[in-house]
């Protein structure tokens, strides 16, 4: 009987430790070439937004965690926008990274930025796994990193975001920019960067 009691106690203790030790999940962001092209390759009549709006030697990359509540949402921009019109959506956390693109061309800017971000260890931690969140990546000329201050769309050179998800498992999450056919890419990038409107 003593052995059984010890066994049960041991299992309980193990379960307790395991339960506590696995309470934090690691999520890495993925950005493929096509997605980078849609989010950071926007070109208008005056040329690429990245070169128009950003100072090449100090590009501010903003990573946001946008809280969308607890409901499960689809990835469609209109669905998310409609939802946030009636529910509190806000930037929960923000991290900023500065990259130097002075030696990059418009074609290689994203790749260069990507390579420099790889060296960054600091991420955003403490994201509740029971909240539905979106991860957003914005390249902007603004130097502020205040999550309570909305980004200025006119200073944004590129933007990608993830689908709404609960980060309750370790893994990778894709970033992209869903660009409707009837909207030009500048509007799409600015809408991506300034969402949510309530912020």
């Amino acid at each position, binding site marked *: 009987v003593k052995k059984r009691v010890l066994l049960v106690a041991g299992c309980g203790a193990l379960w307790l430790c395991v339960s506590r030790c696995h*309470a934090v999940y690691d999520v*890495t962001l993925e950005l493929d070439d096509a997605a980078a092209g849609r989010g950071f390759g926007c070109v208008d009549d005056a040329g690429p937004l990245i070169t128009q709006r950003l100072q090449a030697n100090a590009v501010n990359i903003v990573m946001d965690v946008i809280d969308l509540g607890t409901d499960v949402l689809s990835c469609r921009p209109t669905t998310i926008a409609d939802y946030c019109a009636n529910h509190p959506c806000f930037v929960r956390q923000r991290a900023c990274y500065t990259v130097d693109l002075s030696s990059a061309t418009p074609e290689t800017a994203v790749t260069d930025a990507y390579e420099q971000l790889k060296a960054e260890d600091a991420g955003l*931690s403490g994201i509740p*796994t029971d909240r539905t969140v979106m991860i957003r*990546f914005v390249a902007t000329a603004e130097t502020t990193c205040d999550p309570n201050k909305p980004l200025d769309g006119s200073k944004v050179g590129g933007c990608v975001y993830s689908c709404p998800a609960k980060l309750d498992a370790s893994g990778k*999450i894709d970033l992209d920019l869903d660009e409707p056919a009837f909207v030009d890419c500048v509007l799409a990038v600015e809408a991506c960067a300034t969402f949510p409107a309530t912020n």
Partner: protein
Amino acid sequence: VLIVGLCYPNDVRKRLAAIASVALGCAASAPPRAPVTVVVRGDAAEVSRARAALAASPPRGIEVRPFEPPPPRLEETGPGDLAAALDKVRAAYDLPSWEKCMAPIADPALVPALLAAGRRDGASRVLFWRAACLLLKGDEAGARVAARELAVRGLDLPSEKSDPAVPRLLADVALDVSRQQPITVRVTSAGPELVVSFDGRHAVCTTPCPIPARPGPHTVRVDGDGRSPVSREVSVEHGPVEARFDPPAASPDLAARQWVTRWSSSPAVDSAPSLHLLADATRARDLALMVIQGGKRPSVRAALLVDGVVRARTEKEGARGDDAPALLRELLVEGHVIESSSVLKKPLFWIAIVAVAGAAAGLTAYLTNIPHTATVRPP
């Protein structure tokens, strides 16, 4: 506790360590062993095996104290050498010498002592010869007193050789006595029921009881388990008489002999009165009696007395002397002298189970509500 404790802060660890040390301390300090007096009776071979088994492997936490009852009590015989005294009386009567005839039987305490010992025949012969010796003296009144005492006590006439005048006198007086109305002697006791012997008749009744008696002297004796026997002369004259007795408690040795005499061979050896008497004899707080039957159909009967109360009984068919320790343990558990070794029967176990279940439920609730988080890293 150690493993779980590692998951907690220092102050919680200290408390857990304190709890663990107290628990270990409790477990380490063995309680003193409780003495239990054990009496084993029955088949001699099985009794020996039981005693050996109990000595070799007593129940845990118990000090087995075997008790060997003394030999049976010798019956009180009253005054000794009566036959020799009566031979002298008879010889003196034939001389004739009334003084020598009377001398050996003149003591007035002789007849009550003989009757207290249940020797009615001896008392009858003493009274007969008193009457004869007094008639030899020419004291008919005195002879009538002796004859009357013989009749009043309801003693049978002895077949002694004497002058025919003696039996004639005795018969005459007996006729007179028989015409008198009996008077009630009510014998009562202050404590428990006592067995009453009246004029040498054993176990006439148990107290309280009325006994019809002819007017005159009577010898009343009372006996009881755990009490010293007491006898007293009660004089009955005109009206009802109450004789109240409160005999002193028997000594342990006397109680042991009483038990051996009255109960050890009785089928009711494990009855409550038997056990109570045995407890008096052993002076034991916790007393276990085991009666072992051997042969082709072995069995063990056992009973446990705690503080004068029968707390547990058991009977096992097929059990033998070797099973005595297990049966004793069973008795002691049933009698709540010791706790069952099975954790399922320990209240503390179930309290611990409920506590652990509660703690587990609490922990589960706590862990379920732990704000699990994610860390997002840039590409």
